[in-house]
């Protein structure tokens, strides 16, 4: 049961992370390939707060601080860089993630924060994993999903679609594309930071090894695999990140190769899967739209 709780918690966290990335990519065509940088920011903010004496108000405080940090930094990054060509933004985004990684390692060392205490929420102790999932993770995920679905039905979604399709026309109609782009980017990044904070509270520690270029690209691949602009797609993306590698490894360990090469073959299979999905399933498994490859995305 402990194992199931662990897997469920991670599944929710990573599905939410994929959902937040989907926001940036599918709504305003921002290829945020350094999304885990914001996850890291939220993670470290939460850890720094929890490392001091937890008080009654620490949980909302932690989440708010993480969200604010993520939003502010993404606003800064967004205003400065979203006028660049898409490819350059991709590199900058990766660079941002690497800088965040460097900051995390410099701050607390390669081991990160450890032995953090989980705060209480409304007097309920969160020490039990299932309680944590029920009281914190699930409600947050439902809220994120509700926001996503509601957004898709609002006028703002159509404005974003117009900006993606024809920026000049949007400007003629009096819409400022940069503000919408930065706004959505902020929302996506703030969400990622919040989930970074929640992940830290769950794990009672931070782990700089989670933020790497490969992990970032895997997250993006998971988004593509599940499908863009879709809540169900995000859940499938979460499955790919959390459950599928372990299942593959466990299955391969029963194969004739024995346990010895399961890790390598798992990597091989993931690489093949990525190539196949990108080639033959441009909408992913259950996506509503494909990636927008329009010129430059300026």
């Amino acid at each position, binding site marked *: 049961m402990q194992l199931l709780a*662990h897997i469920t918690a991670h599944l929710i966290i990573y599905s939410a992370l994929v959902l937040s990335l989907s926001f940036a990519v599918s709504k305003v065509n921002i290829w945020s390939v350094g999304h885990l940088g914001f996850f890291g920011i939220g993670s470290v903010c939460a850890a720094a707060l929890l490392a001091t004496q937890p008080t009654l108000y620490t949980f909302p405080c932690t989440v708010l601080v993480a969200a604010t940090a993520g939003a502010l930094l993404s606003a800064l990054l967004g205003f400065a860089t979203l006028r660049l060509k898409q490819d350059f933004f991709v590199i900058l985004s990766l660079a941002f993630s690497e800088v965040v990684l460097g900051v995390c*390692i410099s701050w607390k060392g390669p081991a*990160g924060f450890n032995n953090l205490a989980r705060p209480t929420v409304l007097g309920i102790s969160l020490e039990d994993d299932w309680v944590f999932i029920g009281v914190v993770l699930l409600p947050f995920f439902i809220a994120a999903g509700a926001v996503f679905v509601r957004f898709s039905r609002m006028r703002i979604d159509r404005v974003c679609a117009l900006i993606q399709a024809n920026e000049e026309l949007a400007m003629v109609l009096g819409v400022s594309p940069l503000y919408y782009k930065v706004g959505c980017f902020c929302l996506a990044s703030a969400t990622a930071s919040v989930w970074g904070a929640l992940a830290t509270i769950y794990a009672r520690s931070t782990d700089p090894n989670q933020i790497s270029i490969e992990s970032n690209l895997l997250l993006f691949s998971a988004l593509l695999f599940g499908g863009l602009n879709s809540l169900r797609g995000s859940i499938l993306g979460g499955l790919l990140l959390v459950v*599928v590698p372990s*299942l593959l490894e466990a*299955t391969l360990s029963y194969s004739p190769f024995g346990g010895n090469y399961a890790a390598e073959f798992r*990597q091989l299979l993931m690489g093949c899967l990525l190539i196949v999905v990108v080639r033959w399933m441009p909408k992913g498994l259950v996506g*509503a739209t494909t990636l927008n490859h329009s010129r430059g995305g300026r």
Partner: protein
Amino acid sequence: MTSRTKVFAAAVAVVAGLGLLIAVLRLGTGRSDTVRIGSILVLSGNYKSQGEQIRDGQTIAMDEINARSRIKLDIVFRDSEGEKEISLRNVKDMQSQGVNFIGEIFGSTEALHCLPFIRQQNMLFISGVDTGASLSAAGGKHFFRIMPSDRLASQHLAAIATARGYKKAAIVFANDVWGKGLKDEMEAEYKRLGGETTLVLDTVKNQDLFQPLVARLKADRPTVTFLFLYARDAANFVKEARRQGIQTEFMGTDNLTGSEFADVGEDAASGVMYVVPGPPTASDRRLHFQQLYKAKFGASSEPPLFATHGYDTVHVLWEAIEASGRDVPRVISYLEQVHYDGASGPIAFDRNHELVVSEYRLKAFRRSGGQTTVEDLGPIGR
């Protein structure tokens, strides 16, 4: 149902089905004549070679045991990818399968992260390679290790360095959990004994652009340089240092054992000293393991440290399980009294479940005629 819903349902069903398949397969392996041990290593990324070395040593031990024992040993290897939560998930997976003995969690920080769960579930974790100083306190009864902690190694290294009159030191370390842990302990210990650390250089594993770092070292002119790098990196560093004509003594700990440092360093390795626990000469078991290793991997020289420790970990744990059954408290009691002659040296545990080290010895590499030998320079008093 729309087609997208169908696809979603199908995908979830496939994953669930795979999970069910594995659960069923696992039921078939819970046999009474097989003892299963978990081993959570890093089998991808930068530290893959270390993980493989441990896996190699443990596999040799497993094959040896299975060849002579009626009850079979099965080691379940899992890849933690160097992440704490994945390590913990694998430990929980082991526990859910009824595996209560963990033969390794590679990485002190990953091990630390898993120890609360291990204690809570009354499991046993024995490590051959984790050196983090805080592990024994965190692990309590449920943790043993056959690798001396960083604290012990640095105490002896600092003692011999200051005894030899090296009062001004530079430290070069790999900026990861192991290297930084060792460097922190060393800085503290060296200062306590009156030494002064004037320069600290850091790098990362497999990063071999050493020329600027060596140039910086040359400018600092320390009497001794403590090398807390992985073997190959240490060898390349020393080569570059000799090329630039640095005058300093190089000292390390057991990170320089095994043949990799000597093979890669060649002539530059000559004169480099290191401190290791254990007796002055190789035991029969060590030679036996070397033969097995060479037979399996065709290696031309000494097996790496991690393989040797992986081998010993499995054998010690097996001996305890054979004698006490699969009851964790009884295995713990057995291990507390064990005296095992391992390939890495004599193994016994003190009341903190740390390896009892009767003595540390100073060794040095000597090179002549294209061959490297190791000279024993005597025991170290503390």
